């Protein structure tokens, strides 16, 4: 099993999906063991791929911009019009994604055995997880844009189905629809971008396109537009401003799904896409700046919204949006390595936090901090792992998040303007602040809902196992950045050396910046501790302190309201106008109003109803006359 056979990975899971989806009622335990076995096999094979990659890399016969490792023609259109291929491509960022996806998926599946126990659609749930993972793996190994797009929509569909898993709940179904449509808006951009790139290069192959773009064969404005459209797709999937609104609502899905799809894997597909095309983004600086500033804006906005949110999962969702913003900032500053590194560590600690919150919800049946508190006494292991995840997220030294966030700050310090660095550092502080708030209000202090507290219990071992493993990783995953670790793994220049696309990059450790960010993080934690560790009502005091600001944040900068108004007023209104035009203007005004315009004919204006043959004939006649008039006018 080497890089050439990487297509086996999604194939295994696709098979698992078919079997479990069709026959789960006939299988013992609804087929969950099949999904887990398949996932274990995939993890094992990923390890082999990793070894193969490492061998090729260390052996020096790995070409980072090489051609597809495996390809066959899937559909040829015209004689030389275009060919849709199935092709796989493996390079360093693919490998990172493979590791993240397969490992987190395995953890989530194990966790789900406990969490989803007794659900009526238990088998379907595992089938969907397998389907999602298959689509996600296909996405990351795609060598061409069509396959990538298909997988892209595939993960979207899986996300839709899983967000709406509890479709009996109205909010869940609405959230699923919102997620689907919002991301589809971005997908339009992606699809048009793909068509544009194909028009310019005549190919869907990613490496061919990158080579053509770097050789300057494409007009720069054209390329900029194409890249911005691609980024629109990425922004939709990765919940960047202004398409971020779906992710918090997506928390209606089962919590393990949030951990897998909406924290660790699918939402980083956008980051992956931009990273994949980073050599091209390096050529079009306007597009790169857009990535940078959209990421920055998203990071700040989401972090502030997380400060006032009371639902644990939503806090984590905003935190995810914010961290994705960090990654895009890194990409915008040209630091693919830092972005991918943060993606890597973030996957572990954020899925850990989600699974931890799932553990809390499982135990107490509550998910707002107003109903929780003091849980550390009842759920020590969950608390411990959650705190580890929180420390990683806050960027406290030694934990994973510290290393990767520091990499981003270093990169931004070098690659972007000083204000960007300052804002980003401040946002890192905000991160530490809301993380502290969340942990304190959930696990510390006095129980706010005595009944829920008494009901609470530590989760069963199938759920705790993944938590502990992920907590361990959240602690140590950052160490791969250290030169010593890299050398131990066989990479002379450290892991950072392989995580590049255009030029090698060495992880740097800037002691000053590290110290600064440590001070910020620890300071923020201290402030948070001082503020929220007191009595229960202090939790809610912020809204007295600055009610307008609080309201603005709670209403999420009114983005959702704006969109709702947009859909209601503009789109449906437009449809209404057209429908109205059809029946009023064509049939009534065209008949009556027109008659009134030609008032000397003396017809009375009165509402007529359509459905009438003469009116339909009139529409046809007007259409014909218009065509003929234009035709003659052109002559």
């Amino acid at each position, binding site marked *: 099993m080497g890089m050439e056979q990487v297509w086996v990975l999604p194939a295994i899971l696709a098979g698992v999906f078919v079997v479990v989806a069709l026959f789960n009622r006939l299988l013992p335990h609804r087929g969950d063991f099949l999904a887990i076995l398949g996932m274990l096999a995939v993890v094992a094979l990923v390890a082999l791929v990793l070894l193969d990659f490492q061998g090729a890399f260390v052996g020096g016969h790995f070409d980072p911009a090489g051609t597809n490792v495996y390809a066959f023609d899937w*559909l040829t259109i*015209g004689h030389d019009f275009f060919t849709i291929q199935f092709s796989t491509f493996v390079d360093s960022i693919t490998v990172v994604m493979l590791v993240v996806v397969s490992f987190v998926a395995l953890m989530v599946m194990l966790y789900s055995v406990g969490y989803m126990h007794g659900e009526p659609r238990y088998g379907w749930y595992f089938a969907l997880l397998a389907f999602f993972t298959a689509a996600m793996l296909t996405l990351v190994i795609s060598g061409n844009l069509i396959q990538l797009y298909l997988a892209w929509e595939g993960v979207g569909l899986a996300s839709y189905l899983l967000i709406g898993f509890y479709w009996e709940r109205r909010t869940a179904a609405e959230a699923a629809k919102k997620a689907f449509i919002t991301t589809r808006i971005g997908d339009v951009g992606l699809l048009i971008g793909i068509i544009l790139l194909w028009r310019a290069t005549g190919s869907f192959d990613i490496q061919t396109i990158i080579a053509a773009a770097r050789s300057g064969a494409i007009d720069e404005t054209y390329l900029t537009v194409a890249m911005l459209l691609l980024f629109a797709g990425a922004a939709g999937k990765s919940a960047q401003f202004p398409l971020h609104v779906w992710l918090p609502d997506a928390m209606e899905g089962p919590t393990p799904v949030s951990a897998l799809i909406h924290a660790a894997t699918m939402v980083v597909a956008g980051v992956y896409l931009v990273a994949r095309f980073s050599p091209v983004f390096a050529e079009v600086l306007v597009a790169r700046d857009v990535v940078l500033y959209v990421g920055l804006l998203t990071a700040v906005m989401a972090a502030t919204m997380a400060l006032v949110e009371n639902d644990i999962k939503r806090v984590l969702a905003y935190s995810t949006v914010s961290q994705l913003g960090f990654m895009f900032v890194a990409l915008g500053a040209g630091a693919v390595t830092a972005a991918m590194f943060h993606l890597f560590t973030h996957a572990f600690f954020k899925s850990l936090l989600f699974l931890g919150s799932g553990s809390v919800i499982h135990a107490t049946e509550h998910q707002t901090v107003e109903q929780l508190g003091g849980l550390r006494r009842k759920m020590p292991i969950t608390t411990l792992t959650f705190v580890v995840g929180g420390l990683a997220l806050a960027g406290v030294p030694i934990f994973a998040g510290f290393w990767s966030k520091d990499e981003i700050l270093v990169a931004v310090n070098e690659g972007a303007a000083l204000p960007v660095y300052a804002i980003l550092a401040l946002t890192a502080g905000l991160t530490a602040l809301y993380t502290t708030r969340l942990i304190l209000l959930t696990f510390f202090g006095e129980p706010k809902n005595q009944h829920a507290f008494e009901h609470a219990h530590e989760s069963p071992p199938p759920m705790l196992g993944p938590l502990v493993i992920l907590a361990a990783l959240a602690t140590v995953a950052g160490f791969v950045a250290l030169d010593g670790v890299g050398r131990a793994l066989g990479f002379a220049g450290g892991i950072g050396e392989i995580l590049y696309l255009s030029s090698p990059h060495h992880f740097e450790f800037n002691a000053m910046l590290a110290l600064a960010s440590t001070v910020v993080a620890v300071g923020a934690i201290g402030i948070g501790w001082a503020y929220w560790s007191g009595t229960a009502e202090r939790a809610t005091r912020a809204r007295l302190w600055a009610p307008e600001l609080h309201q603005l944040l709670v209403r999420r900068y009114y983005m959702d309201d704006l969109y709702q108004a947009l859909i209601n007023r503009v789109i449906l209104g437009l449809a209404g106008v057209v429908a109205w035009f059809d029946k009023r203007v064509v049939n009534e005004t065209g008949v009556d109003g027109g008659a009134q315009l030609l008032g000397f004919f003396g017809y009375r204006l009165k509402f007529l109803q359509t*459905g009438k043959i003469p009116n339909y004939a009139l529409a046809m006649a007007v259409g014909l006359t218009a065509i003929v008039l234009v035709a003659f006018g052109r002559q």
Partner: protein
Amino acid sequence: MNDAFGNALSFRYELLLPEIILAITAALVIGADAFRSELRLGRRILPWLSVLGLLVAGGVSLLWIDESSDFQLLLTIDNFTTFFRVLFIATAVFVILGSHEYVEKHIGHIGEFYALILLSTVGAIYMAAARELLTAYVSIEILSFSLYVAVSLARNDRRSGEAALKYALLGGVASAMLLYGLSLLYGVGGSTQYAEIGAALAGGAPGMTLPLLLGLALIIAGLGFKASAVPFHMYTPDVYEGAPLPITAYIAATSKAAVLALFLRWFSGPLLPAIDDWQWMIVGLSLASMALGNLIALQQHNIKRLLAYSSIGQVGFMLMAIATISEVSASALLLHIGGYLITNLAVFTAVIALYNRTGTEEISGFRGLAQTNPYLALVITAGLFSLAGMPMLAGFLTKFILFQSASQGGYLWLVTFAVMMSVLSLYYYLKVIREMYLHQPDGDPSRWRLTPTGYLATGVLSLGMVVVGVYAAPLYTMADRASRVLF
């Protein structure tokens, strides 16, 4: 007058065998229905007799793959014809399979119903096969007349008669426009043969610019009506709503595809030299159809009207390929028509099965289908997703190739608009899906099953939808071989 046609006449009557079989089957069906009591036949025999005739005709038509033969210069039996022969016959088979239960309950004249489907298939096939205006015109009228009658066949439903009246009267106006256009085309081209018209237009038709433009406008208006392109679409929602459901399905599938086949024959052949004169007209119709169809569909609450507006939008997509006609876009259009027919029939067969159970056409009638019949809900969901262009289903891939070919034809802005409209359409399809999954059933919440033929039809069509969506190469190869004879 022999010299006009010379010695090129061919009288290979066996080439017309499939249509002869269809006509004979139609006669047998009517006869069997009329003498039912004497012959001691049940009504159940009629659909099976029709399906048998269709299958035989379809099998026979496969004999002439890669044939290239003219029948008296009136018709040509080539791959294009064979493609549509098989497509239309298959459509008729699935409409009949999916609807015999409905027909027994809601159709007044059962024998005539099946006979009309068979005969209109003949008309549809010859629309694709004709290479001469008169034959094409008579074929158009055969299809149209059959549909006028078929629309009026619903028993005890006043809407049926009203729809038929609207369809017949406005259809008469449309064919008058078409005919006038054809007469001008005949005047400009000096012949009714496609080949000679093409030759005359290639010569520039000096001094006849305005009559040619007028003729093109009239032809496009007439055909636009038959294809229900905006602004000649006005009858569509009413007719879709008033017609019996299987006929609605049939109109949405066969009638639309036949007109597009005719469009392809005409605009890739005789009218191609005048492309500068008609291209913008088709672009205009396409744009208007996409916009209006998809926007008004947002407001519908009757499933037939929803599908009517959605089909108007779909016609807008398909007309893009006509506007940017080329070998590639013709193959892309054929592929898309194939995928669209499969998808549309899957949706309609499922809706018919649901109607047999609930008796309502309102979208609210879909409530709780996921609980009472999850299989059917899945089929409808897949079908609607395919219409909206979701990957892994027929709709995405065929539409993508269609858009791609249109963008290469120089209409990137139109394609961009089409992609956006395509996403908009997801909104109203999701409305239906939401009813099925989100709401509790209004009435009896117990599970129910389809008839065996219902399972067969929906199953095969859904499978086809997935196969085309995942591996379209075989269908594309067929479409490509069919379109290659056009140019």
